[in-house]
């Protein structure tokens, strides 16, 4: 190991230092004092980490720590995405977390530690590091999910998430053990080279299945989705904004690595499996969301459906599929964080507006929030000139390009179904309060500078991706190219996996 290796994990190092710093300052402040500045420390730290990830592009593609972590346009893409989401989540929490009696310091520290795990997850190319990273991110999010511990749903959400999540991690670990048994290594490039020639092919297949279970659980794809609505309902909204996007982005990055990079030779196995999971997620998610009256449960099912659209991109061959999946992750993150930001603001931390019909008249009460809500919902439907449209467009065109026309049609029909419940929500906001009903309970939220920044950030990103998707698409394609391993029939034994050539 040489010192330059540490540059390969620079964003993670920065985030860790910030997290520790936040905890230390939090512990040394007198009890009655406000912890809000901790949020600013975390926000600034995350911004620095974001720039550090961008700076990593100068390092060139390569691995460090004996082939344990990688830096490449692919990792930078996801690092920037995750840091961006975390930044918005912190900004959102800054103005919405209640001041007193809440462990604000810990809250920010946990978010930042979670970000460490998620970032590391995207850059790890060694399955044990993958496992550690996943644990770091999961444990932080388990605690965050239960942050409203005085409500009944809060602890329920945390415990459910923790128990089921641990099972999923165990599956993943089991898969890692199997693949180690089959190939004798846990380094992803080496596995890619050895997997084709592995004698016990069935063991590799089994390992793939187990790992898929673990990962699909984390992205809440059907049939591993049952935890999602309960957890989203119980967790505080600013946490859900994070929970529904950042860990998913990280795990999708891992899923891309495992499928396209580690086991491309088993495409004939994982592609049909993901096809089925994609169709199931979309259909189950959308149909279930149709019946929901609770906003957060509805959005939870919608996020299941979106996982399905995203998985449709995996039907795309080669880099088009990867680029589409990466693009979708970003577009989905922008609009979903946005919609949860609006929900958080309108409904407050203690969520006095749990149901769709409670949002009646939001557009008149607070035109800004109302318009943004409608905008994000329209983007989630996938209407042109919003990020959601191009996300869906690239994912499904990758699927069509890969020959999965049926999948694309199912996906689009599903987006028609999805339109029904998104619009029901949007129309509720646009409708005046019903006759004889008490004037709406929506209290005008305090929109501070941090929340303004968060809203501007997500709105800007969603619009930008809808009108000028070019730049992000290029980044996604660049990322996709670095993920491709050299064809497995190339001379293998003497190539050094640590030095991936630039495309």
């Amino acid at each position, binding site marked *: 190991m040489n010192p330059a290796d540490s540059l390969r994990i620079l964003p993670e190092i920065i985030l860790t230092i910030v997290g520790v710093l936040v905890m230390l300052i939090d512990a040394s402040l007198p009890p009655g004092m406000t912890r809000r500045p901790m949020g600013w420390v975390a926000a600034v730290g995350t911004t620095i980490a974001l720039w550090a990830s961008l700076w990593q592009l100068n390092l060139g593609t390569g691995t460090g720590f004996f082939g344990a972590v990688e830096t490449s346009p692919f990792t930078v893409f996801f690092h920037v995405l995750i840091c961006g989401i975390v930044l918005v989540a912190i900004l959102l929490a800054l103005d919405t977390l209640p001041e007193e009696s809440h462990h604000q310091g810990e809250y920010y520290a946990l978010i930042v530690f979670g970000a460490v795990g998620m970032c590391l997850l995207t850059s790890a190319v060694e399955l044990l590091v993958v496992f550690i990273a996943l644990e770091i991110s999961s444990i932080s999010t388990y605690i965050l999910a239960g942050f409203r511990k005085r409500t009944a749903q809060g602890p329920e959400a945390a415990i459910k998430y923790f128990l089921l999540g641990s099972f999923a991690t165990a599956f993943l670990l089991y898969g890692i053990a199997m693949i180690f048994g089959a190939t004798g290594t846990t380094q992803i490039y080496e596995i890619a080279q050895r997997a084709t020639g592995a004698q016990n092919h069935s063991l590799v297949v089994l390992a793939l299945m187990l790992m898929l279970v673990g990962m699909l659980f984390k992205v809440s794809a059907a049939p591993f989705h049952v935890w999602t609505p309960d957890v989203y309902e119980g967790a505080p909204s600013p946490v859900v904004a994070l929970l529904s996007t950042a860990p998913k982005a990280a795990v999708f990055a891992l899923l891309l690595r495992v499928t396209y990079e580690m086991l491309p030779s088993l495409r004939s196995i994982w592609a049909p499996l993901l096809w089925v999971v994609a169709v199931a997620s979309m259909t189950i998610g959308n149909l279930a969301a149709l019946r929901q009256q609770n906003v957060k449960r509805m959005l939870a099912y919608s996020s299941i459906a979106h996982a399905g659209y995203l998985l449709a991109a995996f039907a795309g061959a080669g880099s088009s599929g990867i680029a589409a999946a990466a693009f979708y992750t970003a577009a989905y993150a922008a609009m979903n964080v946005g919609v949860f930001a609006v929900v958080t603001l309108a409904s407050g931390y203690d969520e006095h507006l749990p149901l769709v019909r409670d949002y009646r008249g939001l557009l008149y009460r607070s035109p800004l929030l109302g318009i943004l809500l409608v905008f994000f919902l329209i983007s989630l439907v996938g209407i042109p000139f919003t990020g959601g*449209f191009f996300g869906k467009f690239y994912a499904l065109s990758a699927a069509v390009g890969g020959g999965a026309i049926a999948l694309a049609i199912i996906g689009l029909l599903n987006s028609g179904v999805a339109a029904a419940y998104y619009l029901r929500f949007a129309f509720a906001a646009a409708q005046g309060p019903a006759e004889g009903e008490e004037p709406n309970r929506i209290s005008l939220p305090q929109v501070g500078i941090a929340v303004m920044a968060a809203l501007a950030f997500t709105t800007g990103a969603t619009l930008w991706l809808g009108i000028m998707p070019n730049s992000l698409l290029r980044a996604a394609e660049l990322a996709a190219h670095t993920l491709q391993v050299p064809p497995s029939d190339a001379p293998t034994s003497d190539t050094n996996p640590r030095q991936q050539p630039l495309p």
Partner: protein
Amino acid sequence: MNAINESILTWILLVPIVGALLIALLPDRGKLSAWIALLTAVVSFGLTLHLPAHFIVGHAGFQFEINKQWIDSPAIFYHVGVDGLSLWLVVLTGLLAPVGVLASWNAIKERPKVFYSLFLVQQTAMFGVFVSLDLMVYYGFWELSLVPMAILIAMYGRKNGPKAAIKFFLFTFIPSAPLLVAILWIYAQTRTFNFSELQILLASGSLPAGALFWVALAFLFAFAVKVPVFPLHGWLADSFSEAPVAIAMIIAGKLGLYSMLRFHVGLFPVQTRAIAPVLIALTVIGVLYGACLALVQRDYWRVIAFATLSHFSLTTLGIYGLTLTGRDGAIYQTLNDGVIEGALFLLLGVLDTRYANSQIASFGGVAAKLPRTATFFVITMLAMAGLPMLNGFIGEFLILSSTFTEISKGWAIAAALTIILGAAYVLWLVQRLFYGSESKMTIDTPAADLRLNEWVALVPLAALMLVMGIAPSIWMRAIESSVTQPQVKQTAESPRLAVGALEEAAR
């Protein structure tokens, strides 16, 4: 002048959006947003008039064309242009914008900011549909055109807005799913979204015919729902009775009919030929079915909804007769219907705002109270019934005569029954609403006749009905020049056609 010609379409697309942003940003004070909307609409109408003024009749291909790369991968171009087919539709859309604003002047009392800004966004989306020549850009505008409509129906619906809006949205959004897949499939095969290139490529026969059949069907399905063609008209009546007047005048017809001509008949001549008999049968059924149902409705919005179904079915018949005359007639009839529906909805809106009632039975003898409204209503209804010297006649005549001489006498005779049925429901509606003894509601409710804004909007429309009926050649010249392009004429000679088109492209 050249610089204007090369950027006019961009301006037409941008002006309404700018107006919408202005309305959204400025405070909500009195009639301010309505005035800005009116100003924007008039300016954009003025801009559209630039097109016919500088349109070169007889010039094959697209004019005022702009073609710039927007996204590299997949290669999407900002490619817009007009030809004889879309020219007058753009102008009509421009004309209906100020009409729509004036029609909403008194009707929209709450939240005018939201209404007018969405109305202007809708305007851009419709212009976009008519001028886009890149399939993805076209699809973008097509989808975009649904959103303001749906939101406006939901917000300003008369009784049950959200329900009608969701119905409308799902009916029109779900069929565009196969449309998008079809477009993507074409792109996967040809690597282009460019309309002119695709026309050549698809005619060359290099793509698998079996798949093309389904692709063409997906296109047709999306457009047929939007027109609507029988039996896909389920959304129409609800949307008509709920939509605010300014939206109802543009909700059906034009977009779907234009898209059929341009993107179904224009791109897939062989597949069109194969499916035309089915469509001819469906449209004739639609013509009669719509007319019969219009006769028995109790609510005048629903009468108009089914009358519209009947009318647009007839127009569709003109398109799928695949004759030049029929096509001319269909394009002309699309324009006519735009003008007639504009006036008609405005007038029914007058009744609706004055009496807050749409049950025909409650009316009677309104002519005594609102004589000017009655006059305009009669003119409009006669134009709709296809009285000679008014515009409805020309289009219907062209369509029916081409069907009679070139397709089938039986279908033509069946479809011609609509003239009788049409006259029946039209005259009966006029009689029940405006004449006869005065009903209790008419006597009890004080009502004012046409206001200045309604007057200003109606006069040009009524004048147009007359002029379009007497001097159709003003419009026909440009329309015919587009039809003489090789695209519909002879599909059997596709190799020659492809060569010709290639030569043209090379030039």
